[in-house]
């Protein structure tokens, strides 16, 4: 037991979340869900601009598809109204279907592009569709770090 606490104390500080970068909404086209494609400077050292912008643009496309007011949404709306909206007990709305696609896409992007660079995208729907939260992790090599003495031993000793 003593050994493990010793190791815990040594290593607790090592892997850490450095910062979180928030990509805000872009309201220039109204209330439709769009995120700013401006590349944040904090990510400049971690990921290529084009990759990131592609991700955001693709997300914006998905959201635009979800919120598109067109033939399909009219059909869905009229059908739902005619059934006094009971139809939504059985079927998913188009928006929900697209949101599922989006979360699959984000997961895929995280796996392929962001995780290897020590970044992580959070699905905006988990943040109230306000921001794309990009968690930036400290870039630690596999050599580990020297034991840090400032670990709060209080935690391990509770």
């Amino acid at each position, binding site marked *: 037991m003593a050994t493990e606490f010793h190791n815990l104390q040594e290593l607790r500080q090592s892997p*850490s*979340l450095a910062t979180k970068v928030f990509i805000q909404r872009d309201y220039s086209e109204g209330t439709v869900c769009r995120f700013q494609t401006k590349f944040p400077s904090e990510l400049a050292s971690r990921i290529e601009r084009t990759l990131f912008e592609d991700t955001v643009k693709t997300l914006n496309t998905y959201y635009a598809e979800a919120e598109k007011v067109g033939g399909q949404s009219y059909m869905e709306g009229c059908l739902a109204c005619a059934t006094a909206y009971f139809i939504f007990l059985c079927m998913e709305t188009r928006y929900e279907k697209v949101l599922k696609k989006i979360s699959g896409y984000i997961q895929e992007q995280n796996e392929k592009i962001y995780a290897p660079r020590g970044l992580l995208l959070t699905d905006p729907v988990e943040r*109230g569709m306000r921001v794309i939260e990009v968690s930036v992790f400290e870039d630690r090599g596999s050599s580990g770090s020297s034991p840090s003495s400032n670990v709060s031993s209080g935690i391990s000793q509770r």
Partner: protein
Amino acid sequence: METLGHKKKTTPRRKWQVFPGRNRFYCNGRVMMARQTGVFYLTLVLIMVTSGLFFAFDCPFLASNLTPAIPVIGGVLLFFVLGMLFRASFSDPGFLPRATPDEAADLERQIDAANGPSGPGYRPPPRTREVVINGQTVKLKYCFTCKIFRPPRASHCSLCDNCVERFDHHCPWVGNCVGKRNYRFFYLFILSLSFLTVFIFAFVITHVILRSNRTGFLSTLKDSPARYPFTGENVVVCFFSVWSIVGLSGFHTYLISSNQTTNEDIKGLWSNKRAKDNYNPYSYGNILTNCCAALCGPLPPSLIDRRGFIQSVTPQPVSHSNGSSMYASTQLHTHMCDQEHCIQNTKFVFQAAATPLLHSDPVMIGGGGPPFPGKSSLGVPCAASLAPSQPSLPSSMPGLGCAGDMLSLRDPDTHCHHHHFPSPEETPLPPGPMPLTLPCAAHRGHMNPAQLYDPASQDSLHEDSVRGLVKLSSV
């Protein structure tokens, strides 16, 4: 080291139970309303009593003398009215979840940075942001309660104590706010109610007329109280309702056709009186398109995920985890976090974080699986998820707990290599700060640790680190 041997002492709590804001939830979170619901019951009573009297006293005469379609149509209308009323009253109008602490801090930094460079003597305006929407400048205000910049058309409802997207108004008759998600139900409610009141009014009058044709007007009136005691009541209620409800329907029809909210109309935001070139940037320009967009547009799902679990052992169909879990968590810890759990969960996260970084001796933690040397990045998410919120440890848990749900849902068969969990029987943990390791252990807790300890090649480590981070993405 104590093991997390407790089975859940308390039932897992759902997010609605700790939702900030003045709302009431019923049916285990399926139904949500404002705090004051008295007027809603009055609405219900008025509708039911009036319709009931109509069906009981007027319909038999009308059905036999005119057509039986009358009660049928009346029934369908009543059914639609009640359906729309319940939909408008019980659904989430479009509440915006409050900002997570990280978001709020980031916004504060941005605001300070924006205001900072101004010279002495210059007082910056209160927190606003300007955006240009379709050529019109719109000011976004900062909400001090929700700690967000409100999206355009959103407003904070003081009765519900929440920011509501596309806020129309708070309707006491419906017992809820009217916003983006339930505006169409509200409109269809008042529209169908106006048809219903007109229908009832018309046929009650018809009934009186037909009767008076047969027996004379005066004798009809004399008979009415005795035989049809509430005809008069029906007439009175319907008369007043017709004017108010039909008027309201007309007003909202105008609002829909010009794509404005009641809030905007009252404030006169887009009227030409303010400025010459003031126009509504949200309007599609065409009345028909505006109507279709408002009534037949896509219905966005709720952002507050009220039925999701805060901390759960069993996977639940959580559709959206949301920021409010992190926010609510600061209030949560006193309610739902068993101190013991907090401590244990914390320890486990640190173990999870620590073990991948060991190079040499595997650390046997509580008799569990050995760690994986060199997998530094694997450990990153585990500790990372906890590290930022270390000062308020319990607060991190509920949010991550939700993630635990998502995680266990999404990755049921994920190869879980970081099995440094002490023992399988500890897997039914409240997820707490270890969403990553918990479901893994839950699913693969019985894997032979020996298989896992393999100072493997960098490729597999890399792959695992990716997976580790990917799992965190579910958080």
